[in-house]
């Protein structure tokens, strides 16, 4: 080491040594500037290779020998891989990342990934100064970039996507992770999970699920011309379910369904007076819903009439689903803040835990118009129509819910079922063909107005299929007056289960009836529809 003195400059010379005998491999540990890492503050550190990428030999192979194994499986797998040119990269320990834990459990963690290409064209050397003043140069064998690992919980990609979709709705962002944690705790309980999200949405979701179910069954009963509706409706339903948006969308979807229904059913009866007295809340944000409502009503009206009988003749499940459906509809409407009387009704209905099938007759009388707002297809209009046909006829009582006493059944369905059976068994129903249920219904007309189609439907169902059981001219006439129907539709109404006739007999009887009635014909949607004008 020589030092030369010169004016205002000093130079020092040092010997540089490159030790040859060392086994030590020098590596660089690079931290990002922003992480503010100060190595001198580390009290303790542990570092290990991250072996998570190592795939054990028989990773996919569960069992070695005996059960579940194949003869020569390994060789076959290898041959297959060669054939396809699949080359698995060898697992090299030196290339694996490091996991550095500083200051124990509570400290920071870093992951150090090897940086490639460091030693390809130039070599890095570490110059350290020895006590004797000489420099020693050591070659750097690898460069690792260390990045801090997050200790807090993070959302997975899917969850992040979800939350992104809800970012406009969610105000309290802190609760997101909290909910996630809670969710993890109660992973097994699905309901809980749903409950974590906005309460309303939960209900909505559940209902929507129910909603989908309902429509599945409804499809069977729907008229031929309605088939397209139902499928559309289902789509509309499922889409809103997928969205986490407010009920609005769901309702919109449903409404679209109805709308389309009205479009495809060209000949929907729509009396002028139907929309009078429509109470529309112009302040609600979902204006489209208002527009949709009238249209929705139309298909409702037309379909309701025949549907009523269907309901009566069909299983109780439907009414239950309808109930759910209605509830869902209720929710949706509620959330939209509509203030139509219908909603009030719905609210009331919701309040009453049992579906009191207090007759909606009073409703109809009172507000035939508002009835049109019913979300469900089986809405009052049906009732109204039924009314007109006459007292003893089923229709009269049909729309009217089989006013079973509120106290009588916890589920209207059960009552409906019993009524049906009673109706069937009764050969000579007292006073009229209407089964006791019907009479009850008519008797207790003025009951709580909080009715909805569900009860209606239920009532419709409870409407003794005894009337339906008989394939009479009366029944056919009634149907045809209400709405043009194809023979197929008519057959659907008089299902063999209920009428007790075989399908052939049904066909014959129906043909005779039609001959007698001699209805007018019209071609709708390329199908021959019959109708009567009274």
């Amino acid at each position, binding site marked *: 080491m020589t030092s030369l003195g010169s004016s*205002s*400059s*000093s*130079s*020092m*010379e*040092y*010997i*540089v*040594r*490159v*030790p*040859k005998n060392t*086994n*030590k*491999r*020098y*590596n*660089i*540990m*690079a*931290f*990002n*500037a*922003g*992480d503010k*890492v*100060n*190595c*001198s503050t*580390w*009290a*303790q*550190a*542990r*570092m*290990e290779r991250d*072996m998570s990428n190592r795939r054990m030999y028989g990773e996919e192979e569960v*069992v070695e020998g*005996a*059960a*579940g*194994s*194949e*003869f*020569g499986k390994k060789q076959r797998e290898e041959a297959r891989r060669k054939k396809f040119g699949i080359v698995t990269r060898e697992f090299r*320990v030196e290339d694996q990342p490091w996991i*550095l834990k500083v200051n124990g459990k509570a400290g920071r963690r870093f992951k150090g990934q090897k940086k490639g290409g460091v030693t390809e*064209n*130039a*070599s*890095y*050397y*570490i*110059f*350290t100064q020895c006590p004797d003043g000489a*420099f020693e*140069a050591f*070659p*750097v064998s690898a460069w690792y970039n260390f990045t801090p690992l997050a200790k807090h919980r993070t959302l997975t990609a899917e969850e992040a996507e979800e939350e992104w979709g809800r970012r406009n709705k969610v105000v309290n962002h802190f609760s997101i992770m909290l909910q996630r944690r809670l969710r993890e705790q109660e992973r097994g309980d699905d309901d809980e999970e749903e409950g974590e999200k906005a309460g309303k949405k939960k209900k909505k979701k559940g209902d929507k699920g129910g909603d989908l179910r309902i429509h599945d069954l409804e499809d069977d009963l729907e008229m031929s011309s309605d088939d397209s509706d139902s499928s559309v409706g289902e789509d509309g339903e499922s889409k809103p379910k997928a969205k986490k948006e407010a009920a609005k969308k769901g309702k919109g979807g449903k409404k679209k369904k109805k709308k389309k229904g009205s479009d495809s059913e060209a000949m929907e009866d729509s009396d002028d007076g139907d929309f009078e007295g429509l109470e529309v809340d112009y302040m609600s944000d979902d204006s489209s819903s208002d527009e949709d409502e009238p249209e929705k009503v139309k298909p409702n009206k037309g379909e309701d009439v025949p549907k009523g009988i269907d309901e009566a003749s069909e299983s109780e499940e439907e009414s239950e689903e309808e109930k759910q459906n209605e509830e869902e509809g209720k929710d949706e409407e509620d959330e939209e803040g509509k203030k139509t009387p219908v909603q009030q009704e719905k609210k009331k209905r919701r309040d009453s835990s049992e579906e009191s099938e207090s007759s909606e007759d009073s409703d109809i009388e009172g507000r035939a118009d508002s009835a049109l707002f019913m979300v469900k297809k089986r809405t009052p209009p049906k009732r109204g129509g039924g009314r007109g046909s006459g007292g003893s006829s089923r229709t009269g009582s049909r729309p009217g819910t089989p006013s079973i006493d509120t106290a009588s059944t916890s589920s209207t369905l059960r009552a409906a079922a019993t009524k049906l059976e009673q109706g069937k068994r009764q050969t000579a129903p007292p006073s009229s063909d209407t089964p006791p249920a019907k009479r009850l219904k008519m008797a207790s007309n003025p009951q709580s107005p909080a009715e909805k189609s569900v009860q209606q439907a239920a009532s419709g169902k409870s409407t003794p299929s005894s009337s339906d059981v008989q394939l009479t001219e009366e029944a056919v006439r009634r149907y045809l007056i209400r709405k043009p129907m194809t023979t197929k539709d008519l057959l659907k109404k008089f299902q063999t289960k209920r009428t007790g006739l075989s399908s052939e007999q049904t066909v014959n009887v129906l043909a005779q009836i039609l001959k007698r009635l001699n209805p007018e014909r019209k071609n709708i949607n390329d199908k021959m529809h019959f109708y009567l004008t009274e």
Partner: protein
Amino acid sequence: MSEKGEVDLTGAKQNTGVWLVKVPKYLSQQWAKASGRGEVGKLRIVKNQGKAEVSFTLNEELTAIDCVGEKASSVRAPRDHPFTMQTVGGQTLAVFTENPSGQSEDRSDGSAPDKLVLEGVVVQRAECRPAVSENYMQLKRLQIEESSKPVRLSQQLEKPVTTNYKPVSNHTYNVEYEKKKKEEGKRARGDKQQVLDMLFSAFEKHQYYNIKDLVDITKQPVTFLKEILHDIGIYNVKGTHKNTWELRPEYRHYQGEEKSD
């Protein structure tokens, strides 16, 4: 002895400062040739009015470059290399060393626990540049020539290669194969009981077998074997173990499976 994974932090605590120097490839090659204690040259630091100039001078004996190819060592490595000093920037660069302990005990993962020592922190970065000289240019030219040579070379042959693919009446492999087949002869149906025993013992080892493998194992004609298999086994058409035979449930008693019968 330190635990595996424990990092020796003495260097960090003492805040040992080191330099990180980028050195050209040829220079590092020359350094590798150093002998003795490893002295490779001298480092001169001149502090000129606050600015430091660092330069490295390669030792004389190390300037001889071994050339690959025809040229004799007419090319010499330049001796002067000024250093370009750079700041570390915001980055924290630490130096740690791995010391494979090389213990005698064998470990399943293949490597003994390395001793990890944090040597220090980089305080200065530098680049070692050769002083431009005639020597250097020649060296560079040599390098370029070498690297521009194509890895693969097309060579024209005077005579066509005649050693492969001579027409043969019958390939040797085929001849052997036919001979083997002949001596083996057609497989004879052995005793059914014996065959069953063989099958059961085979199925003890593996659950699923291909018909070909079974034929191999049992040395029975295929049809006979199939008959027997129909009795005691079932043929998987679908699923993961496609087209394989396995024993009927009542015959098998693998561990981990429910015992049946």
